[in-house]
C-alpha cells in the first residue's frame, strides 16, 4: 500500500494525509496519545481557544440522539496563554512536525484577532481555523457565521494580522451556505471547513426538562452526514479555495464520500468518542480504498463525484 500517495495540500500547507481532527473532539491530542500514534494524523485541529479563559455552559452539556449527539460545551477553554504553555508546548515536544491548526474563538472581532496575535510568534502553529459557527455561545460564535457581512469582516480582520493559512469554519444553520463561503473567500480565507454542528434540542419526557441545561445545543455525528455532504458539494462547486469536510465521518468510506463531494481534507469529530482510534483507522482505510480502486493519489478523489 506504500504506493498510494495520501498527501494533500491546504492553503500551502502540505498534509501527509487528508485526515484531521475536528475541533473540540480531540482536545490537543494528549488524551488520545494512548490510542493513536499522533504523528500519523494529517493535522491536529485544537479545541477552540479564546483570548481569556471561558467557563463553558452548565451541565448537562451532552445528550445522545438517534445516530448523533447534542453538545453544549460552550467553548470551555483556559485561554490562549494557558493553551500556549500547556498544549502547544506538549505538542511541540511530543509530536514534532505534526501540523497544528489552532481553532480560534471570540465573542467579538477583537477576541478573534487577539488570539491570533498572541500566537503569531509561536513556531508550533501551522495555521488558524476561525470558529464563526459555534451554536453554544451567546455572543459571537454562530452570529458571525450566519451573516455574510459579519463573516467577511471577521475574516478580513484576522487576515490582516496573519500570513499563515487561515481557515474559516462555516455554520450549517443558514439558508445559503454558498454565499457565506464566497464572502469569506473574498475576504481572504485560504480555505473553508464545514460543517459545524446543526442547532438542535431534546426534551426528557419524564421530567419535562430539556436534556441540555442550555436548552439548545449542537448536533453532530452520522445523523448530520447527508446535510454535511450536500453543503460540501455546494460550496466546493462554488469557491476556488479548498474545502475541509466534516460531519458524521465514522469510517474511511464516509471520508471518501466527502472527498468525492469536493473536500480536499476531512475532519473526524464525534467518531473519536466512540472509537478513539477512528482517525488512524480512517487513514488506513483511505489507503486501502485507493489501492483497491487503483487510485494513485488520494487527491484524485477530490470532487470526483459523477453527477452527469
Amino acid at each position, binding site marked *: 500500500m506504500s504506493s498510494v500517495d495520501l498527501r494533500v495540500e491546504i492553503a500551502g500547507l502540505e498534509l501527509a494525509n487528508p485526515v484531521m481532527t475536528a475541533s473540540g*473532539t480531540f*482536545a490537543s491530542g494528549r488524551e*488520545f496519545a494512548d490510542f493513536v500514534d499522533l504523528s500519523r494524523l494529517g493535522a491536529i485541529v485544537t479545541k477552540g481557544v479564546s483570548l481569556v479563559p471561558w467557563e463553558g455552559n452548565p*451541565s448537562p*452539556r*451532552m445528550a*445522545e440522539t438517534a445516530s448523533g449527539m447534542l453538545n453544549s460545551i460552550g467553548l470551555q477553554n483556559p485561554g490562549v496563554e494557558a493553551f500556549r504553555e500547556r498544549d502547544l508546548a506538549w505538542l511541540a515536544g511530543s509530536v514534532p512536525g505534526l501540523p497544528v491548526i489552532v481553532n480560534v474563538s471570540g465573542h467579538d472581532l477583537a477576541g478573534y484577532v487577539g488570539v491570533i496575535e498572541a500566537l503569531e510568534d509561536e513556531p508550533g502553529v501551522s495555521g488558524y481555523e476561525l470558529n464563526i459557527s459555534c451554536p453554544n455561545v451567546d455572543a459571537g460564535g454562530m452570529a458571525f457565521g450566519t451573516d455574510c457581512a459579519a463573516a467577511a469582516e471577521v475574516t478580513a480582520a484576522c487576515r490582516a494580522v496573519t500570513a499563515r493559512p487561515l481557515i474559516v469554519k462555516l455554520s450549517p444553520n443558514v439558508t445559503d451556505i454558498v454565499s457565506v463561503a464566497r464572502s469569506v473567500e473574498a475576504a481572504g480565507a485560504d480555505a473553508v471547513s464545514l460543517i459545524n454542528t446543526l442547532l438542535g434540542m431534546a426534551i426528557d419526557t419524564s421530567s419535562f426538562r430539556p436534556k441540555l441545561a442550555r436548552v439548545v445545543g449542537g448536533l453532530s455525528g*452520522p445523523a448530520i452526514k447527508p446535510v454535511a455532504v450536500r453543503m460540501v458539494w455546494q460550496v466546493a462547486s462554488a469557491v476556488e479555495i479548498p474545502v475541509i469536510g466534516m460531519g458524521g465521518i465514522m469510517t474511511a468510506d464516509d471520508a471518501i464520500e466527502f472527498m468525492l463531494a469536493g473536500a480536499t481534507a476531512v475532519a473526524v469529530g*464525534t467518531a473519536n468518542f466512540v*472509537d478513539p482510534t477512528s482517525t488512524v483507522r480512517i487513514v488506513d482505510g483511505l489507503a486501502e480504498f485507493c489501492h483497491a480502486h487503483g487510485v494513485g493519489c488520494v487527491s484524485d478523489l477530490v470532487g470526483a463525484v459523477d453527477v452527469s
Partner: protein
Amino acid sequence: MTTGHDCACAHRAVPPALENVTVVANERLAEGVGLLVLDAPRAASSVAPGQFVHLRVARGADFLLRRPFSVHRAHGERIEILYQVLGTGTRALADKAPGDRMDLLGPLGTGWSIPEGIAHALLVAGGLGAAPLGMLAEELAGRGVAVTVAAGAPCEERLIGRELFERVARRFVPATDDGSCGARGLVTGVCEPLLAEGSFDMVYTCGPEVMQRIVAVQSASADVPCQVSLERLMACGIGACLSCVVRTTRGVRRACVDGPVFPAEEVLWDPAESPDTH
C-alpha cells in the same frame, strides 16, 4: 489530614486501552438490576477501585456513544459490573448472554484514594452506589483497614452488593425505605450516628448526588475527610470532550479523568442537587 488525592496513584501507571471482552455471565439480581461478568484480562489486571470502563454496549441508532460503568469487582481475568436498567443501553446490557462480545475502553478515571495509615473507613452506598464500593471494600480489607458499610435501598432485596460487603466488612449497616432490612429510612439516617461514634478516619460514598452531598456535610461536621464518586453524562470518557465537568474549588474538572472520585470538600455542588429540591 489530606485525602491524599494528589498522590501518584498506582493505576496511573497502566494507560487505558480498547479491549474486546466476552460475557461470562449475566445474572438478574433484582427487578431491573443485573450483574454482568466479563472476561476482560487487561482491564481486570489493571483496574483500581473506583475506576470505570466505557462499554460499547451495542451498535446502532440508539447506541452511538459508549456507556460508563464502574468496576464492581475484579478477580483473575474477570471484571464484574452492577447495572441498573434505565434506558436503551442498559436494556441491551440486560439482554446479553454468555459468549456475547463487546468492546470496552478502560480502565478509566481516578478512583478512590487510600491514604497510608487509615485504620477505619466508612463506606456509604445508596442503591447502585454500591457498584464502585465493592472493589474498594475488598482492597481496604486486604490492606487491613477496618471497613464499615452503610447501605441504603428501597427494600431488602434491592440491597445490592450485600453479600460482598457482609463478607469483607467488619460491620454492615443496612437501611431500607420500607424497613424490610435494618433501619427504616434513608442511609443518611444511619450514617450520622455511625459518624458520631468517632472511630472513622475516612468516608467513601457513592449514590444519588443529593445523598452524597448530605454524607459530605455529615462527614465534615464529624471532621472526617470524605470522598465522593460523581456521575456525569460522558461522551469520550478520556478527558477530551468536556461533557462531564464538575465544578470544584480547583476549577472546572472532568469527571472522567480527574474523577469520578473527588475529595468532597473540593466539590462545588450543583444547585439542582440540593437536598432542598428533593
